[in-house]
């Protein structure tokens, strides 16, 4: 029974990671790249208006980083809850 609870905890922790990372995912693409793009465009990043940069490059690069972070977190979590693969 205790083990079942542990596995449930593992799953809840996974859901927490997903929720946090997907809210960043939503923010950089939908909020920065679409909804508030015009407001952000007033700020400059080198030659880019900031909103335009998020829509064209920033969101895509951050997506990559989000997956990297998720993979690392999950590899650690797999070990902690003893569900890792050999």
């Amino acid at each position, binding site marked *: 029974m205790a083990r079942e609870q542990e*596995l449930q905890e*593992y799953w809840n922790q996974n859901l927490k990671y997903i929720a946090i990372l997907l809210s960043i*995912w939503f923010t950089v*693409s939908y909020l920065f790249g679409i909804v508030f793009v015009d407001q952000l465009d007033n700020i400059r990043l080198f030659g880019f208006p900031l909103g335009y*940069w998020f829509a*064209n490059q920033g*969101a895509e*690069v951050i997506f990559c980083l989000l997956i990297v972070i998720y*993979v690392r977190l999950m590899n650690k979590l797999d070990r902690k809850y003893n569900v890792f693969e050999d």
Partner: protein
Amino acid sequence: MSITTWTWLLVGITFLIYIIVAIRARAVSTGAFYTAERTIHPVLNGMATGADWMSAASFISMAGLISFMGRDGSMYLMGWTGGYVLLAMLLAPYLRKYGKFTVPEFIGDRYYSQSARIISLVCAIFISFTYVAGQMRGVGVVFSRFLNVPINTGVVIGMCIVFFYAVLGGMKGVTYTQVAQYCVLIVAYMIPAIYISIMLTNNPIPAFGFGSTISADGAEILQDASTQGRYLLDVLDGIHKDLGFSEYTSGVRPKIDVFFIVVALMVGTAGLPHVIIRFFTVPKIKDARASAGWALFFIVLLYTAAPAVAAFARTNFIKTVHNVRYENAPQWLKNWEETGLIAWIDKNGDGVMQYGPGKAITGKPKYSGQTGSFGQALVSNIVTTGPNEMYVDRDIMVLANPEIARLPNWVIALVAAGGLAAALSTAAGLLLVISASISHDLMKGVLMPSMSEKGELLWARCGAAGAVVIAGLFGIFPPGFVAQVVAFAFGLAAASFFPVIIMGIFNKKTNVYGAMTGMIAGITFTSGYIVYFKFLNPGANKPANWWFGISPEGIGTVGMIINFLLMYIVSKVTPEPPQEIQDLVVQLRYPVERTSGERKISTDARRPY
């Protein structure tokens, strides 16, 4: 050597590589044919997924599309990358743990229903055929533009190649050829992009280059000394304004529509079966997660360069064409006139090319075979009254890039080989989905469950062979609706597969009634909306008539929401799924249970646990 010789040489070499790889990676079991024996390294799988994902459209058309759409074009960049985050976190690891061959198989088992499996397999086949038709056409078009071969011959050559490695090699052969194809296409895309970036801004990284200032050499190429030292995007915004366009870095499409299209593209990506099955080929759960990251990395390499190419090409095009006498037009313009991708109609008879908003002619240019008084090729199209004198096909922004950058002939040939690699790799991935849906889901799963593995493998090969032939026929006789139905592929994937898979994993209590109601409602709603606006009443396809301003391209998002809601509500009021299904869902949620002696997940596709 001439461009044609170089092109034949490079295309020949790359094709030879694909064939050798395919022979070495022959599939001799269903496990190898469907999932490459689940032995693919996550980095290689990432490359293969990149090639699988980036189609002829990504390679040839996307930068051009962006260069005409300005900031609105970013919806494709975000939409076609964001789905990988969803794949990594919400789908790939759990489906890999489940450990079977196809997406319809998972849906059929999870919802303990043959009908659910049949609906899914029909969807999978429909989505894949929609997509593959454009790829085979793309192969023909590349052949005709670079090698002056009739389009149909090009399609047949492409069919033979794909036939060879998809039918013989199955997933194993396709995976390794896709790795080779990724290498070809990324090199072919980046070399011209890097050169143009150096030429205009002196920055060797295109993604940074288009946020840099224009160099002295760049200003000379643009024939405007005043642009030196100014940010490229500022210059581009300025010329856009002067010509009467809206600013390049501003958007004109309503935000609600952009929002819904991006959701549909992202969720659609995550629901496309040919993308999902790539994650069945890695050995471990952690590899499935990592592999999604690698795939996105390899895709983003090209996708961050695309908007740069778009901005460079746009600036260069306007500066070197607008208000320039035709005699002084750059050489590439005259070269590409012959292909029908660019045309100049001297409306005011002054011998100077004028470019601006609006269309110059109706439809695609039809050359009359005569030349005008300035040596330009004349067209027989109806000429519009607007001031714009230039017809420009968006594909030229990538295809003519090497010539614009004055690169040697072998680079031009490389772009041809890259375009072919992009089209062939995507076609092969899609053909595998069709073949597996027929042999594994339809024949083995529904019609002839007692079939031996040998028999199934034969069906898989026949399915792939049949699919190649049908795809080729689509390429030779393109149905007029192909361009319209690409929205269909994404919309359907978003409204059907994505919600049922997600709920199947994240909610134990979702049952067959919910899933069937949700799927059927999602599919019916989405196809109804698209069919109405694209086929039944195309005249009404305007923002004013759309529901809440959502175009048919973005309607898959609404279909998805309907699917989710119905699935949840119907599952609440109908009997729970059987206990063994709920236990199965719990098992999907962790990699292995070490306390009961499990050390790794099975790589044998026939026994899931």
